[in-house]
């Protein structure tokens, strides 16, 4: 668990479009690792291109993921929202795994 470099409260980890962001529980400051700001900027521009008439969102300090895109940082790469191979799996059936401990 990280400590906030400014106020030393604990920081919680959030996942925004697959990018890990630490936010301080005390001062609400946000900590980004090396390269994460660039990742967010890139995702923001992709998001803006996908949805040109996006209304301004003054409450958002950083681009929020669309609701369907909530996934953990360790999720499979196809969680980026580009379809992936789910249909393939679904058509093939579940496999035994979904029916056993």
């Amino acid at each position, binding site marked *: *668990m*990280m400590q906030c470099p400014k106020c030393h409260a604990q920081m*919680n*980890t*959030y*996942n925004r479009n697959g990018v*890990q962001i630490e936010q301080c529980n005390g001062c609400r400051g946000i900590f980004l690792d090396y390269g994460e700001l660039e990742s967010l900027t890139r995702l923001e521009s992709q998001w803006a291109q996908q949805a040109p008439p996006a209304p301004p969102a003054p409450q958002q300090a950083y681009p929020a*993921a669309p609701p*369907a895109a*909530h*996934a*953990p*940082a*360790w*999720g*499979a790469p*196809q*969680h980026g929202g580009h379809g*992936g*191979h*789910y*249909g393939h*799996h*679904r*058509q093939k*059936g*579940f*496999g*035994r*795994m*979904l*029916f*056993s*401990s």
Partner: protein
Amino acid sequence: MTTTQTSVVHDLGTLAHRLSHPARTPCVCEPPQVLADRPDGTVVRSGAIVAKAHAADTDREALAARIALAAAPQLAGILLPPLPAPAPAAPTARPVTLWPLGAPVDPTDPGAAPWAEAADLLARLHRTKPPFPLPPMRGPAKAARAVARMRAALRADATAVSCGTRDAATLPGDATAPPRDPAGLSVLAGWRALPAWARGEVPAPVRRGSSLCHGDLHLGQLVRHPAPDGPWLLIDMDDAGVGEPAWDLGRPAAWYAAGLLAPEDWSTFLDAYRSAGGPAVPADGDPWPALDVPARALTVQTAAVALAKCAAEQRDPDEHEQLMIESCARIATLPPELATGPAS
């Protein structure tokens, strides 16, 4: 072992058949049908009666409380209630319970899987106040057992390989030696990154330990009763108890994160859970801070079981098992300060 298992199957079949119709009516029954036959659960059906032999090392007092829970009126419409069990003539090596037959989920029709119904049942279970004292939910204990099983299986596998190659360096002298298999190492790395409560090493923190939980949810744990069109109910109380409710969402969450469960099915499940007021995740916003630890634990558990099976059967992981192993590898590469995350 084979002889013992066979005799358990026979005894369960006889018991279920004896109860499935009055003794003096003419018998046109089909032979008893084995629904499952594992050391931790042998299940045999005759007619509308299902008999289950639980694991030999079952804590019988805890099992009695769990079976009483399934029979409690507070859980009607959520858990399949047991049938009254006749007192055994002699003490049995494995405790036996009796259940009415239900219709299971059709494994050949993924589109018909009752994701919303499963989530609704879980939310209602999690919201029910325990009607009497219950043992802890056994999810973390099962995860620990799966990892131990994988270690043992990979050691045995390494022995087989090293005996063939005369490579003394791979001989497993140390019971705690890590497996040499990279997939096994990923599973262990994911396991070590979990908080102690999720590894079953300490009780769950109180804020995480207050709900009635199923403890081992998967699609084999749902039946329609009465068959074939009755409402869906949860079955198999062997791991139920009081604990962290997000554990029950952890397996679908792990499947979704691995790419095994379609996003629309995951949304159906999660939305239904939230609509029914389930307490494991916040009513809106990102559910992953609450789901992260159980989902990682169940990813590790599933991958560990898969690797143990592959080693025992001398085969490679199938496509679905491979997705869970890859998930473990991603978990293992997370920086430790993120892997312990906000939900620990």
